[in-house]
């Protein structure tokens, strides 16, 4: 049984101009000990998907099973208990920490909410986690503004890990950081995974980071998964034209001054194109693509693609 199993999940918002279909029929699994990377452009619904899995946003339809229990139908008390095992790390280390609380308060709050330990025991847990993420103990009495961006992200990681969760949803955890700090935080996430046996759903727009950090990769476009494969397969034999375009858009010294691989913007999730959602930007689109939505089908074991023209991988 997978640790997390999401099936046919939708999250629609009511907005002026009609329903906004941010997540529109997503199925995915995260196995125990696995890191699943989720990539796509801004507006593709990847953050909404993360928040829906956290139950911070209510789904419109579908199921989210965690350890075999459907968490979309739990009452408040049981949801609280389930949440202890799913935690989140946010993109912006400046906005996600309360500036009026000391680091000690920020880290103690989840323990109090879940009624863990007495005062002395909580102190011990907090001291242990702050050292694990590479910050000195005396950080606990200080406030967020006294820390750099990289240090704040360490605090965000400590807060996510303090309840000893099984799954951590990381929403662009290194995107706001300088390159020299990114490597520090990625290494810390790897260390924490090893030491604590974590599984990650790693949401990022940065393909190079996902290339390094994921075991399996999902590519999302306008609310749907359009390709999924294990890490090595996806980057060496991508099948969906969108995946190819994303890879070609990553700046590369080998392609001096090359033209942009795809044109136009992501269409609005309030007005999703007919047929294949990608056909308006796809260089290979035909009449079939404009009229009929492609099925998400296997082209090789463990490699799925939603494109009419994806050829099966030959052995």
């Amino acid at each position, binding site marked *: 049984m997978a640790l997390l199993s999401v099936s046919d999940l939708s999250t629609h918002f009511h907005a002026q101009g009609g329903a906004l279909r941010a997540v529109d029929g997503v199925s995915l699994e995260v196995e125990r000990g696995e*890191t699943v990377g989720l990539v796509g*452009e*801004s507006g593709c619904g990847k953050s909404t998907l993360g928040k829906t899995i956290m139950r911070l946003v209510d789904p419109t339809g579908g199921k989210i099973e965690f350890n075999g229990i459907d968490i979309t139908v739990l009452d408040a008390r049981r949801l609280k208990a389930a949440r202890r095992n799913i935690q989140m790390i946010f993109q912006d280390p400046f906005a996600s920490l309360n500036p009026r609380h000391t680091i000690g308060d920020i880290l103690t709050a989840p323990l109090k909410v879940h009624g863990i330990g007495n005062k002395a025991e909580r102190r011990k847990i907090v001291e242990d986690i702050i050292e694990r993420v590479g910050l000195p103990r005396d950080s606990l009495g200080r406030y967020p503004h006294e820390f*750099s*961006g*990289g*240090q704040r992200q360490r605090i965000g990681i400590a807060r996510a890990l303090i309840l000893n969760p099984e799954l951590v949803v990381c929403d662009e955890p290194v995107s706001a950081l*300088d*390159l*020299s*700090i*990114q*490597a*520090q935080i*990625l*290494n810390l996430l*790897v260390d924490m995974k090893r030491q604590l046996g974590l599984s990650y759903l790693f949401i990022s*727009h*940065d*393909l*190079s*980071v996902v*290339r*390094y*950090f994921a*075991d399996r990769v999902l590519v999302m476009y306008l609310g749907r998964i359009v390709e999924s494969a294990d*890490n*090595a397969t996806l*980057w060496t034999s991508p099948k969906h034209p969108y995946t190819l*375009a*994303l*890879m*070609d*858009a*990553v*700046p*590369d*010294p*080998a*392609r*001096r*001054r*090359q*033209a*942009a*691989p*795809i*044109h136009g*913007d*992501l269409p609005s999730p309030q007005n999703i194109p007919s047929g294949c959602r990608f056909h308006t930007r796809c260089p290979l689109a035909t009449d079939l693509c404009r009229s009929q939505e492609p099925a998400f089908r296997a082209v090789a074991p463990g490699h799925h693609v939603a494109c009419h023209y994806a050829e099966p991988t030959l052995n």
Partner: protein
Amino acid sequence: MAAPLLKVDNLTVRFPTTEPVSRLSFEVGEGETLAIVGESGSGKSLTALALMQLLPRSAKIPNGRIEFAGRDLFGLDQKAMRNLRGREIAMIFQEPMTSLNPVLTIGRQITEVLTLHEGIRGKAARSRAIELLNLVRIPDPQRRIDDYPHQLSGGMRQRVMIAIAVACRPRLLIADEPTTALDVTIQAQVLDLLDTLRRELSMAVVLITHDLGVVAQWADKVVVMYAGRKVEQALPGALFRTPLHPYTRGLLAASPRLKTNLHYRDARLTEIPGSIVSAAGEKGCPFRPRCAVARDSCAHFVPDLVEVSEDRLVACPYSFIPEVAHGAAFGL
């Protein structure tokens, strides 16, 4: 060799307690793209503001010279500078939403520049604005010209910023992190557009970025900045093949890349320890506290930039030592 279009010589920017830009020199030739790369706190954005003479009032420039097309910018009075700014030197910023006025249509914001600098008004200005929107590849410009910024996507807003910047056919465009807020797909489109305009309008570009990939793909020449100083200068090919300064080497080693098999299950990323603030207020080489090959002597003096070959400068005396050049200390 022809005289450079822009020549920055020994520029220092000082605030009461800090010196975010120290003795910086570089040149940009006509029609050339120079990339200035560095992380937050490297002084790259303040350098851009100094070029535009848009520094905050508390900033002082105790020494240095900026020469543009043979004119000393510090010798110009306010009126002359205002005339130059927008007409001959233009700038675009990272966040197009905050640099555009939300309550004016984009057409109004483009025609404003045309009226101010070229005295074009009314219908003529409007049709010139439509031409400019066409030039930056905004679809359906006749209709789009009456849109407000919030009606456009991030990529489209950056195109509008570029249209405003190139309205008077400047000879130099300063682009400060023009694609940092955009997706890679849109980033590729915007950089492609900037480069096309550079050629079509024969304009030089100073591209300020933290993204080494962007530098590698689009720059003719690269300046690497750290803590207000130029630490290395090279042609992009050479910089990526044989980075010399320990900071450049560290940055390249620390960045995961799409074209490598590096995976977390097999190898750790090479870190640069600490952060850029660790050297604040200390003597010696600003990179010393984070440097993998620092020696005692690095604490005593700031290394000079040395020309190691044509188009190649580096500010580290130990970057020539064989084991350092082989990058053993950096996991390269």
